[in-house]
């Protein structure tokens, strides 16, 4: 890249993102991303970022726990600038290991993110959210029966509930949230009720739970909302039919709100390209990126003001989300898993 072009790009970055402290971004024409996500939306966002800023993206995608160990093992030699994961629990653990540094307010863009989706100390933030919802068989269940999470734990639902294994982090985070909100006893009571009501040994992923409800193996299931969104937006009519056979309930409306988790990111503690890292973090909250998450991944944008073209997701939106700060999901994750072990939720 010629110096003049680089200067122009630098200027453009500073202008578009109104970053006060741009420092010496000519050293930062690249940003190293360690991501636990692998979605088409992210490829689109990264491409757009390079297009708008001229900053190249170096990407490593791996499972969250291994990513954290890699950054930890590399220590001060770590090449990571930005760390992205799909669960608040992983972000919490990375933060506890000292892998993040505060990224600042990202030129004001961070103000658009609700406080509940940010680390209280400013170490990471959510750029998209996912709700843990109830799906029910339209032909067999009256939605008024399943308005609360704890409805699924009632004796009426014995042998009618499908949910994936408790090894899955989405279930851990749900019960971790309940521990924070209602205390460990209430959370354990809920988990025990679910374990007793299981229609089958937990197996498969969230999509498989929805399929099981549609096929009549069970009547209700706990899943993340975007799996249903993906089925309803599928090009395959058989997939859409499965999505249409079930209804969706955002539980605990008026009772504290539906539990949400985040896709989140933060600036790595030893980032070799901190300015480029900040630029990317700010870009994740830009309208273009927020739209991509909503349209390509069926996630709710962290910035509630962003408009997007996805009728299915728009149909889901407007629910009341928990005010609980998602950091609590990480803090209580280990306790949640011990509850699963005790109540026998496999």
């Amino acid at each position, binding site marked *: 890249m010629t110096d003049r072009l680089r200067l122009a790009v630098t200027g453009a970055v500073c202008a578009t993102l109104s970053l006060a402290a741009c420092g010496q971004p000519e050293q930062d024409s690249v940003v190293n991303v360690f991501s636990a996500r692998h979605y088409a939306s992210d490829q689109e966002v990264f491409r757009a970022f390079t297009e708008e800023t001229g900053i190249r993206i170096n990407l*490593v995608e791996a499972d969250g726990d291994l990513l954290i160990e890699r950054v930890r093992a590399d*220590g001060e030699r770590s090449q990571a600038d930005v760390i992205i994961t799909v669960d608040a629990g992983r972000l919490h653990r990375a933060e506890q290991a000292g892998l993040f540094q505060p990224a600042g307010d990202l030129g004001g863009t961070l103000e658009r993110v609700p406080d509940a989706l940010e680390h209280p100390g400013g170490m990471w933030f959510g750029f998209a959210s996912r709700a843990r919802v109830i799906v029910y068989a339209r032909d067999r269940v009256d939605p008024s029966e399943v308005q609360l999470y704890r409805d699924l734990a009632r004796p009426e639902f014995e042998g009618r509930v499908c949910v994936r294994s408790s090894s899955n982090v989405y279930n851990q985070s749900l019960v971790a949230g309940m521990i924070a909100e209602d205390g460990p006893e209430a959370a354990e009571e809920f988990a025990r009720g679910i374990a007793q009501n299981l229609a089958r040994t937990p*197996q498969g992923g969230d999509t498989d739970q929805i399929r099981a409800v549609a096929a009549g193996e069970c009547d209700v299931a706990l899943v993340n909302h975007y799996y249903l969104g993906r089925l309803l937006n599928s090009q395959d009519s058989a997939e859409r039919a499965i999505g249409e056979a079930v209804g969706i309930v955002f539980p605990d409306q008026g009772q504290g709100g539906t539990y949400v988790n985040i896709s989140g990111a933060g600036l790595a503690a030893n980032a070799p390209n901190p300015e480029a890292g900040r630029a990317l973090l700010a870009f994740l909250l830009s309208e273009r990126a927020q739209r991509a998450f909503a349209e390509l991944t069926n996630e709710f944008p962290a910035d509630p003001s962003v408009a997007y073209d996805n009728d299915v997701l728009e149909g889901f939106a407007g629910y009341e989300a928990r005010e609980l700060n998602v950091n609590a999901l990480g803090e209580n994750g280990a306790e949640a898993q011990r509850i699963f072990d005790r109540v026998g939720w*496999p």
Partner: protein
Amino acid sequence: MAISSLAIPRRKASGRTGLHPVWLAAFAGLLCAAPLLAVAWLAVSGPWSDYLAHVAQTRLAEFLVNTAIVGLTASALAGVIGTGTAWLVTRYVFAGRSLFQWMLALPLAMPAYAAAYGWYDLTQGAGPLGGILPTLHGPLGAGAIFGFVFYPYVYLLARESFSAQSADAYDAARTLGCSPLAAFARTALPLVRPAVAAGLALVVMEALADYGTVSHLGAPTLTVALMRAWAGEGSIPDAARLAMLLVTITFLIFMAERALRRRARQTSASGHVRAFRRQPLAPLASAVAILACLTPVLLGLVIPAARLGWRAAFTPAATGLMDAAVNSVALAGVSGLIAAGIGLGLAYAIRTRKLAGRASARIASMGYGVPGAVAALGVLIIFGTVQGWLDSSWRSLAGSPFPLALTGSVLALIFAYQARFVAAAIGPSDSALSRVTPSLDAAGRTLGAGPLTLMRRVHWPLVSSGVALAGLLVFVEVLKELPATMILRPFNMNTLAVTAHNYAADERLGEAALPAVLLVLIALPAMVWIARRITATERARDSVPPSDAIPGMAE
């Protein structure tokens, strides 16, 4: 570990080769064992919490029972399928036999978790076979998947061993009035036991170390327990301790197997091998043989791949697959070659019967029984530590940290692959080398051959197919490897396995199908080549003078 000691026990070594690559091989072996030792160190030195006590009080029994069921189901299926099909293709003539020779090895190229996703998707209630077949799930389902995709380990080793067997004992048994089946059970089967045991060792280790399949099918084994300690509890030392429990269990199984085998020593006394003549089968028997060879290929490869492919038809193809394929082939090819070399070296090290050689081979093998994520963690610890040393010593010399970052390089990847898979290379080389009897060495030396000539002209022709098999196994393993590849690869470098996994983990089976099928296609030429090699040695042996054959028995 047992697979490294498959060698048919030799008479107390009198005529060794005189070659001593032991020290080099021992060093390579220990290097390969380093990540496992790092995990062991973590298990010993890490802080203790009450987590293990909690697991012991709640779910440990369930984890252990599931582990046992998965391991037993997988070995029973793989043992029967692998040995049976190997016997059919080496002993009988039927339509498609030469095709089946290499096709039977193909399911090995199918990642187990991909087969599990495909089968589960087919047989779950909402799937096309839901209600017709029972849903494939739980420990039995997971064991079945491992049996379907890993039986080629048994098949490949058993076929090698069957085709090296002399027909003498079998023919004698037939002459004495045994039925073909009884003759097989009483003569051929005992001779092929070391090879079958080696294959089963690989099957069981793969099955017990697997995470993707058992977690998807709802069969929580010990591996799930250790991943829960890591991911859920956040206690890596406790995960390391559970990994050590897993390693100990596999170790005990194979020590027991070795002890059993020690009672059944055999050597081919004369060094004279009279090959079997393959018997043509009657039409009905031929049809049965074809069905028996076709079914495993369908179950392990065609059906799950077709299901994934069916889903792929409704989804746009992933981008960057060509680059991923090139990366996969390059990494797997280089690693296969290196591993074949190290494996042969370690096989020689075992042969010299020096303690250091045998111990290093055994330690190097143990990495195979560890779940991939834990092995990758071990590699990270090693690289982190070495980097720390390099940085501090470089700083004292030059005032700056060491200029090279170790992780995120191809070098790191290849090291990780060796550490994890060299066990798969030791077994075949060792079992091939056991064919070189001490008397052969002695004869060669008497005729004036130096160590190198001996190796080139006597050993290599005898062991080359075993070494090629070793390289092939590691090639296929590296093609499928996930955790280490994901976490140690350089920026922006994808492989087919990583691409397939990323989509499958995200519950997008359609997109996962194409990279998974490409994996199989890449393995294909290697499988064909190795099948050719083995049939070539068979052809050479088939040309023994006809006077050796018992008239009327052979054909």
